[in-house]
Each structure stands twice: as C-alpha cells, then as structure tokens.
C-alpha cells in the first residue's frame, strides 16, 4: 500500500486541533438559543393561563370566603389580593414574584398544607398563613415522579420487547401481534381501564391497593394505567424504526462487509432507532404522560401534582394552577431541549 502526501491536508492542519471543539460551539449555541426560546414560551404559557383563569372562571374570593360572605367582605378581600387590578398589572406582580422565586401562597390551603374551607371573615384571610405554592408542589412532586417514572418504566417494559420483536419480524406474526396489542391498548380509555383495574385487582382480588398513597404498592395500578396509555405509541415507533433500520442499506451492507447480524443490530439498529424514540418522547409521550397523570391521579386519588392541580382548578386556587402550568411548561421545554440535544449527539445530521 502506498502512501503519499494527501492534497489539501495543509488547509486543515490549523483546524485539526480544534476539530474536537466543533461539538462545543454547537452545544453552546444550541443551549443558549433553546433556553432563550424556552423562556419566551414559558412566559407566554404562564400569561395565557394567568389571563384565562381570570377571564373564564368565576371569582376565587367567593370560594375563599364562602358563598354567604357579604359583598363588602368579598370586595375587601379581592382588593387585598389584588384581584381587582387590571390583568397585566396582576401578571406583572406575579412575574416579579416568580423571578424572585416566590410563587405565592395558595388561596385555599393552610400553611400546614391542608385545605381550608371558606372563611367569611375578610380579616381571616391572611395570605401569609396560607401554604406557599412552592411547598405544596414540592410535597406532591415526588409522588408524581414515582408514578411517572413507574409508568414510563412499565411502558418501556411492555413496548421494547414487543416493538423490537415486531420490528425484527416485519410482516410476520410478531408484527401483527404488536399491531393488535397497540390497537387495543390505545383504545382503552384511561378512565375506564383505571376503574376496571381497581375493580379487578383491588376490590375483587384484593391483590393491590388502589386509592390514595401509603406506600409504593399504591403506585402500581396507576402506573399500569399510564403504561397502557403510552405503550402503544412506543410499540409502533419502535417496531417501525427497527424495521426501517433493518431495511436501511447500511444494515445489509454491514452484513456483506463481514459484520455479524447481532453486532449490526446492537451497535447500529438500536442506536438509530433511539432517535425517533427520543423525539417521540419529546413530541408526544411527555404530553400524553402529563395528561395521563392528571386523569389517573384523579381516578386513584393519588396525591401528586395532577390531583393538586385538578382540585386547585375546581377550587379556583389560581396561584397553584399558575405555578403548575409554569412547571409543566418548563418541564416540556427542558425535556424537548434535552431530547433534541441527545438526538443530535446520536445523529449529527440533525440540527435544531
């Protein structure tokens, strides 16, 4: 084999040492841009929710003070809470608080975290004696994290084997099996399957606890419902991307180049299939998961963020709803950012 001075090498001699840094510039630019974009999105989302709550819903003061409160007391309390100011001013105040890390205090919940009923005494409403929203969220968040983590884990536990098996046997029975399973799972409304699971496994069989949270076992049934909800999308995505990658020219050529089928599958097919799977997480699964958590926590009276939110909306507890929508938006923005970043780490063709 001969060797010769490659032409054009000199042009890149200078660049050579910096070559490794290419990813760094990309990463810095990526994160700067995405965090800025994300901040704008979160800002807008919070404003939309903030305005929506004030425009659409009734007067939270009626809930705070109870139905029989005099209109004088209601007005006094509303003034005190700033609820009679124009929405932009209220929003400005809220943002100023959030920027300083203060998400405000619940309208309804006492400082110890428990709900309090309407007190018609305008002097009785002392917002400092109401629970800080941040604390409420921090109390509920671990439960939701357990449930979400468990749900995603179970979903992957279902979807990975079925999806990969189907993808490897495209057009044959495992493929059809995957189609049946995903078509069935996606057709089971979470509200219904949740109740049916409670009926079968908790009420009838008595195998698993269902309502509330006293220990990890309480997360099992709700996590199954979450898994049933999101696994069909995963199954389809996995089977399609696995079979697409098996059909991709590089796979057959890899075999012809003398590499083993197992190696090609492990090192390349799985790697390439991870990208659409991750994108699916960012685009769809997180949204489904979030929606699913709200409903499932509601069905199972599971004391997480979802139940906190649903109760807060029903009770017009604006500060909680606002904070949680910011939290949800931040979570979505961050998850999408990392999904895109890791996707582009895997597949350098992707530019976001």
């Amino acid at each position, binding site marked *: 084999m001969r060797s010769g001075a490659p032409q054009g090498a000199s042009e890149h001699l200078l660049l050579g040492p*910096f070559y490794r840094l290419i990813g760094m*510039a990309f990463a810095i630019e990526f994160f700067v841009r995405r965090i800025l974009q994300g901040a704008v999105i979160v800002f807008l989302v919070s404003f939309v929710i903030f305005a929506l709550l004030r425009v659409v819903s009734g007067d939270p003061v009626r809930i705070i003070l109870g139905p029989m409160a005099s209109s004088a007391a209601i007005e006094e309390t509303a003034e005190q809470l700033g609820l009679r100011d124009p929405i932009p001013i209220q929003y400005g105040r809220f943002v100023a608080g959030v920027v300083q890390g203060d998400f405000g205090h619940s309208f309804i919940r006492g400082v110890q975290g428990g709900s309090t009923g309407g007190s018609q005494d305008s002097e009785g409403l002392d917002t400092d004696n109401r629970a800080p929203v941040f604390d409420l969220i921090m109390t509920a968040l671990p439960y939701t994290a357990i449930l979400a983590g468990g749900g995603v884990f179970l979903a992957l536990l279902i979807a990975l084997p079925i999806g990969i098996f189907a993808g490897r046997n495209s057009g044959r029975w495992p493929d059809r099996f995957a189609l049946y399973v995903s078509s069935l799972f996606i057709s089971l409304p979470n509200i219904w399957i949740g109740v049916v699971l409670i009926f079968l496994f908790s009420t009838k069989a008595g195998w698993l606890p269902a309502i509330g949270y006293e220990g990890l076992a309480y997360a099992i049934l709700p996590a199954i419902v979450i898994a049933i909800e999101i696994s069909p999308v995963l199954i389809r995505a996995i089977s399609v991307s696995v079979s697409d990658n098996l059909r991709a020219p590089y796979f057959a050529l890899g075999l*012809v*180049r003398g590499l083993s089928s197992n190696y090609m599958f492990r090192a390349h097919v799985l*790697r390439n299939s991870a990208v659409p799977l991750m994108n699916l997480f960012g685009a769809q699964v997180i949204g489904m998961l979030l929606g699913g958590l709200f409903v499932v926590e509601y069905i199972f009276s599971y004391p997480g963020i979802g139940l906190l939110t649903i109760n807060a909306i029903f009770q017009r507890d604006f500060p909680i709803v606002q904070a949680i929508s910011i939290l949800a938006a931040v979570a979505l923005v961050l998850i999408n950012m990392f999904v895109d970043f890791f996707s582009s780490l895997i597949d350098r*063709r992707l530019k976001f």
Partner: protein
Amino acid sequence: MTTRDVLQVSGLSIRNANLPKAAPVLQDVSFSAAPKSVVGIIGESGAGKTVLAKALVNWVASPLEISSGQLFFEGVDLLKQPAERFNAMRGREISYIGADPTSALDPTVPVGSQIVKKLVTVKPTLSKREAKEFVIETFQAVRIPSASKRFNDYPFQFSGGMMQRALIVDALVTNPKLLIADNITQPLDVTVAAQILRLLRQLQQDFETAIVFVTASLGTAVDIADKVLVMKEGRVVESGGTSGLLANPQDDYTKQLIHQVPDIWGAEPFHSEQIDEHPILSIRDVSKTYQLADPDVVFGKQAVQAVRGVSFDVRRGENFGVIGESGCGKSTLSRLLSALESPDTGEVLFNGTSLSSMSSKQLLNWRQKMQLILQDPYNSIPSYMTIGDIIAEPLRIHNLEKGNALWTRVKAVMTEVGLNLDLIHDLPAGLSAGQRQRVSIARALVLEPEVLILDETLSALDQVEQSKLLALFADINRRRSITCIYISHDLAMVRRICDRIGVMYLGKVVELADNESLFSKAGHPYTRALLSAVPVLEEKPFEESVYLLDGEPPDPINIPAGCSFRTRCPFAIDQCAQEEPNLEVYEEKGSAAACYVGYAKLP
C-alpha cells in the same frame, strides 16, 4: 473451469419465489474470473446484473432465491456450503462495494470507527489502535485529504466520491481475493468517476485482487475490464475479451449497446437556424450567496457563494448550454434565470428589461414568455391532477383561454409533443419517464414562451428516450424559433444540441465558447479535464493521464483566493494564487476562457 480461477459461476439461475411463472431474474449465468483480472458486467437497468453481483456475496433476499447453479470460489462451491461458511467469506475473502456510497454506512457513527470495527472483526489479531493507524494510512493512500481528521467525520460529511474512496478502503483492508464493484461510479460526476476508476485500477495492481465490475456504462466497462459480459433480461447474451467484443460484436444487443454510446467528437455540432444577434437574455455580473449556520462558531454564519459574478448573453433563437459538475452553481443559476429567486448583485435582463425592476404583475406576464422545464419526471408534475388539467393550468392561471378554446389549445400542444390525446383525462401515474417529461414540456409550451430553460430536463431519461426528446427540441426550436437554455452535466447532450456553451466551476463561468471550439480546442484546463473524463468509446483529444484532476471542488464556503480552480489545476502558476482571472477571448470565433496559463501554454 480452470482451477486457477478465483471465481467460477456456472449455470446460476435466480427466480422470484412469489412469481413462479414469470421469467427467472437470472437464467443460467456462467462466467469465471482469473486472479488479478477485471470482469466487466454490462447491461441496462433490469438486466439482472445487480442481482448477480449480490448473489456473489450471498445477498439474495426474499422473495428472490437461487434455483440452480454453482458458485466456485477458489475451487469450493459456496452454494453447497452452509450459509455461515459463505457469509464468513464476506468482507474477508470477498468484498463488495455498492452504488450508493452515501447510505452504505450508519449515518450516525464516524466513518473511521465503522471501518476500524470491520477491520478488527475480520482480523481479530489487530488491536484497535493498530487498526486506526492502518485505516488512516489507507485513507491517505486513496487520497482522502486530511485523513486523520476525516477519520472522525460522519458519512454525511463525505461527498459521494470521498465516501466511495472510504468504502474502497473498507473493502480492500483485508486484502480480499475478489472484489465485487456494483455500479460504483453511477452516482458520481464524470471527473470523480474517472478518478475512482483510476484509483481502482491502481489498487488492483497493488492488491492483486480480482474484480467483478458491474456497470451500465459501456464506456466505463471498456475502460477498466479485461473481459466483458453483456447481460440482457437475466441472461448473458455475449461475453469475451474487451477489445475483441468491441471490434467484433456478435449479438444484436451488444451492437445496439455500442451504438448507443454517444459520439462526441465524431458527431456534427448543432447549429440553430435563425439566430438573431440581439440578445434576448442578458445576465450581468449576477451573484448569489446563501447564509448557513456555522457549526464551529457560536452564533456564527457561513456564506455559501453559489453564483459569483456570472455574465453572458443568450441570443434570440439560439441553443445555449451551461455545463458543470454538482455544486458548480448551475441550479442556483437556473433559479435566478427563472426569477424564483433574485440575485444579490447584478441583474438578469430580458429583452433589455431587468427582472428585478418588474412589478409582480409584469413578472406574471413575463412568465408567459420564459418557461423552465425541470429534471425529475416524477416530481415535477403533480400526481393528483389529470394530464389535461396539468397542461391547462398555465392557461387558467394567466386567464388566456376558456372552455373549448382551452381544450383545443391543450390538445394541440399535446399532439405537438407527441402525447396521445387519449391520455388527457388520465392521471400521470401510469406514464413512463419520457411521457412525463413530455407533459412538462407541453405545460411549458402551451404558453408559447420565447425562452425555454431546460434544467437537466433529459438527464433522468435513458439514451433512447433522450434522443427522441432531443429531436423534438430541435424540431420545436426550428418551428417556433424558441430560445433554449440547456443546463446540464451531460457533455454529449450539449454537444448535440447547443450552439454555444458556458462551463461553470464553483459559481463562475470559466469558459464560454461555441460548440465546435469548446470540444476541439477548450481554453480552460477544467473544460479539458471534463472532456478527458467522459466515458466514450472513441479517441479523445484530451488525454486522461494529462488532464484528469485530483481531489474534488473546494467547499463553496471556503473558496480559495485567486483562481478558484488553482488548487486542483495541474498547470497552476504563481499568478493564479494572486487574483481571479477574467474571461479572455482565446480564439477568433470569440470563445473565451478565464485562465492565466493561456490557451497557448496548455499541453
């Protein structure tokens, strides 16, 4: 069979298991390859040559299956061995390179590490480090510039030619006895394809590898092969030594193939009949630059200089050609000419009026006078409209005709381009590529334009269809005295149809000459390089050994200072690095080239 043959195929038949009644895909194919020999396999698409090539590496995918035959490799019939045994040969004793280099490797893993992985798999004694050094060394040997940097690049960062080089490395690192090269030059530009062929020839000498070279181009096969197999519809119709076969073809099909290889220098250059000296289209110092994100600099931008100061006139009634390889800026030029984009500087004048000064209404009227026909027969016409509606669409847009008059005009133009009138209510789905291009042509002609731009319009068609359409254009040109601008990479085609030709390199016109002068004299080394690389059967005035280039065009982001061609030019002088040369007339007919070396000093 002689025992010294590396490969001997006898009576190989392959059929489609799903279509048991159809003719076999391969029928009774027999040939052999001696060590260090090159066997060329030639045939049109559908002849079964790719199926054959793949069968040689045990790559027969369902529903195809081998129905009979033997495949001896070094005396062992691999078809009788367990599949594992055959598969164990692959990538070690028998290597394969395919037609589509850019999708041959996992796009998400650096090229170098994929090749290293293959190397350590087939040669377990090698350490990763040794393998890496070896691969970088080999990269250099196949003239991949900055080999150690390119080692870490991803497949998409390689051009087709560079990737094909990398794959040749991948195929040859194990010193195989047999290399199957399946259409490896097909997607490449002529100069790059010629480089690859040259490389392969050199390597073959060094590695003592037998090569089965599959190609659709007879010119290419002849260039490299010692022995040629001609295939048609799954059968070998003729085989023999290359020179013998060319000189004395036996089979009609072989004769036809030979006949179809275009003559360039043997053909009469084209002359339009009514050329008005007054230019209908003037391009004045037109430039276009695109901004891209720079991955190396935070929030940095890169300027891609697609077209750089192009000027030329097109005279009414003439056929003007623009040629150049991929990335030379010809498609950007076509977008500027058709006012789909506007130039950053300079202007395009139509009958003396600048396109950029036109109001949108004027521009709409102007569109009737200037039409563009695109390359891809499958994507350039909408699949959900009937052929009649497609052709009628321009008339409707410009509100030119209604009711029966509209359909009369549509039918007239269909007849003119040779479309059967029965097709008027059909969707394009069943049409062949040639018919589809006729629909495109009809859609342009129905407006009765004065200028027609053909952007690679014929390049997707086969030789026969191309000839027919060229004849049609010649006819239209004569009857309607339309001005045509052919934008193409196909030298043989512009030779046949164009009066004058501009050669583009890196966004600039480097030579502007009439047909005859360009092909016989060529004042620019790049033009000569292009001409030297065309795969033809005839004698070329410009020798490949003298003119063929190394490397590939530089990135249009980092265009070298001075003459942009100097980094590849075998004849560059000091002056070339100083400033950019302008077009200088080098002969009496007015042909001009942008080169400091000068026509006289070129070999």
